[in-house]
């Protein structure tokens, strides 16, 4: 029997949702019939609108999909202006102020506190500048990710940007693929470093050579959510760039037809790959969904992958100054936990115009890249005051930090995330020496098992939990170690469970001291963890309180907004009207 969500989708879904969305926006929040709230909020996701959590009714998160993270000249200013004008909530965030943009791990943009009534104006501003929220959420083709410097990278064998653009054009707004059983995440990479993170996507195109021709090998069924992480499986298929779209169409049609529409928890294609195996995936794709003979896999470049590969000579991100093949430079800037104030975003847009081509790119590590900077302008850009806050040469604890949205806005999260990770990073920077030679150290903090911060592929993985401290429930984290990508990707081993949030920095301090003390010559952190059995890992370090103070130990999910002076659920102004004034609820 199809799930309830499938029933709603069968009534209205895809592009046609927009017409209803605009009508509701015109008439106001109250116009959505109360007994249709759930159905409409599920559908609005397809247009990038996600109803915020309990206590924040009538406010939405808006996601803008920027394929491959490419923000074209002029677009960043628009994004900053939209954030400044429309993404302001009833209470400021103590770390980030009143309006901000989130750069996500899928090279997209998220704005919060969006009111339904403002959606038509926002869409008008975005779309007149080539930006869109279409299919940014919901059961369809999501934002396509890839190497963030595609087309501007010396390590590139194929320029994957035109391929990503083609896929974006083909599958956004395409009714044949508008209603899939679940989300559909695609990665396209043309470089030999592995920074497209194809291994954790539903469908991955990775560079490979076949009979002297460059194209892509195809992998299927990666993903991290629900304590069921999978790396994408090799289905022994190679495609030339011009046929990537055909294979992508075939595989997403296979998912459309054979994915599980009865149980959403079993719907992602990773579970179909588990059930069928890669051989059957290939056979069904060939027999039913493509009309040309699929070549077998070519020779891949995975043995050259350096991105998050756990090597000393690898690269952990795109932060820093790097030369492009055309002689210009790209400058990667660290954005701590991916959140940038609206004013800073507008200023960054101005700097990109002044010193580069105006283009800015988003990475899968929640950072930004200013591209196309001539060598003679580099020093002036690097001297800009904004780069003191968003550094091209940040401390490893700052550049290694990723955090998801968390209980600030998200229904699923168990814990507060972004503000806490900011505090963790600052405390670690001020108090903990990294062992000699450690340049990259990734700490990913996810509020729950959905794994939006990709915790399983970090050196230190933090996953939201609860524990009791002095009998009182407090926010806590499970701690995993030694995850990463590269030729042989590895998910973190969960080592220390239910560590109270205020004892996590102490644990990391002790862990790094143990690593420095016990490591063999030249042993990387990932090798050090891989070399130890479960018992030894558990004995490695203890969690303890330090000078670190955590203001979010209480159950932040019980509040209407964790940073409000009166954070009690009953003090929430939501739902509000189009001007932000509280509306009387039916209970009043």
């Amino acid at each position: 029997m199809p799930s309830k969500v499938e029933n709603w989708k069968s009534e209205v879904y895809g592009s046609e949702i927009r017409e209803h969305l605009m009508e509701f926006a015109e008439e106001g929040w109250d116009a959505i019939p109360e007994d249709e709230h759930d159905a409409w909020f599920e559908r609005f996701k397809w247009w990038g609108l996600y109803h915020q959590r309990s206590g924040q009714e009538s406010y939405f998160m808006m996601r803008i999909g920027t394929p491959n993270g490419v923000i074209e000249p002029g677009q960043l200013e628009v994004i900053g202006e939209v954030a400044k004008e429309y993404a302001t909530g009833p209470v400021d965030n103590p770390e980030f102020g009143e309006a901000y943009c989130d750069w996500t791990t899928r090279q997209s943009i998220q704005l919060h506190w969006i009111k339904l009534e403002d959606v038509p104006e926002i869409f008008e501003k975005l779309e007149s500048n080539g930006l869109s929220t279409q299919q940014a959420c919901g059961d369809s083709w999501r934002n396509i990710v890839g190497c963030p410097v595609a087309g501007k990278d010396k390590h590139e064998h194929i320029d994957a940007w035109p391929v990503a653009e083609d896929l974006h054009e083909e599958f956004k707004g395409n009714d044949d693929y508008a209603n899939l059983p679940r989300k559909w995440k695609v990665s396209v990479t043309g470089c030999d470093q592995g920074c497209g993170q194809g291994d954790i996507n539903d469908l991955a195109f990775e560079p490979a050579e076949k009979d002297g021709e460059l194209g892509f090998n195809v992998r299927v069924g990666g993903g991290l959510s629900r304590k069921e992480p999978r790396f994408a499986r090799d289905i022994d298929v190679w495609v030339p760039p011009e046929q990537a779209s055909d294979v992508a169409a075939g595989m997403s049609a296979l998912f459309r037809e054979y994915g599980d529409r009865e149980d959403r928890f079993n719907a992602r294609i990773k579970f179909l790959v588990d059930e069928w195996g890669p051989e059957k995936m290939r056979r069904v794709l060939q027999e039913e969904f493509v009309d040309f003979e699929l070549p077998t896999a070519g020779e891949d470049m995975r043995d050259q992958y350096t991105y998050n590969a756990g090597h000393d000579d690898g690269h952990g991100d795109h932060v820093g100054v790097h030369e492009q093949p055309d002689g210009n430079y790209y400058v990667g800037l660290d954005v701590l936990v991916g959140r940038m104030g609206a004013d800073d975003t507008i200023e960054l847009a101005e700097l990109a115009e002044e010193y580069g081509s105006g283009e800015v790119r988003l990475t899968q590590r929640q950072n930004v890249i200013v591209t196309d900077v001539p060598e003679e302008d580099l020093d002036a850009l690097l001297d800009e005051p904004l780069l003191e806050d968003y550094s091209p040469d940040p401390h490893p604890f700052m550049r290694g930090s990723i955090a998801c949205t968390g209980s600030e806005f998200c229904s699923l999260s168990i814990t507060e995330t972004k503000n806490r990770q900011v505090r963790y990073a600052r405390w670690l920077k001020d108090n903990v020496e990294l062992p000699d030679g450690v340049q990259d150290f990734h700490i990913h903090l996810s509020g729950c098992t959905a794994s939006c911060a990709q915790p399983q592929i970090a050196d230190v993985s933090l996953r939201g939990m609860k524990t009791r401290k002095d009998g009182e429930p407090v926010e806590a984290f499970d701690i995993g170690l030694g995850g990463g990508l590269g030729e042989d990707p590895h998910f973190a081993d969960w080592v220390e469970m239910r560590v109270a949030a205020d004892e996590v920095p102490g644990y990391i301090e002790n862990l790094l001291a143990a690593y420095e003390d016990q490591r063999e010559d030249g042993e990387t952190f990932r090798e050090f963890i891989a070399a130890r059995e479960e018992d030894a890992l558990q004995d490695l370090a203890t969690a303890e309180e330090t000078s670190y103070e955590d203001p979010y130990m209480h159950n932040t999910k019980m509040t209407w907004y964790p940073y409000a002076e009166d954070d009690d659920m009953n003090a929430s102004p939501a739902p509000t009207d189009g001007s932000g004034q509280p509306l009387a609820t039916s209970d009043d």
Partner: protein
Amino acid sequence: MTTDVHQLDDGAWISVNDSREINVSDLWLLARHEFCDCEMADFLAEGVVEVGVDAPDIAARFAGRCIQCGREGVTDWLTVGRVIDPDDGQFYGVVPESVHVPRKRTRLARPE
């Protein structure tokens, strides 16, 4: 009027008559249970797995973990609240941190 119950957003919360009523991230005390070996399980609800209606009770099975012993899994059915009068649809939720006794069976909430 029938009572409309479902879980949404990847099991983040339970909707009763289109109103968000039960969220994940609460701690539930479970007695006379088979979830783990603890006499009283201190269970963190991480996700709603299934919902059901056995009038007037609204019940759910949650994925999560006992934060005392660390056992992970899915609970039997927990009563999360009641809709006493289906005509007014008013939901009366239980208090998660009080003591609950899971039961083996309930009627599943099915799409209409």
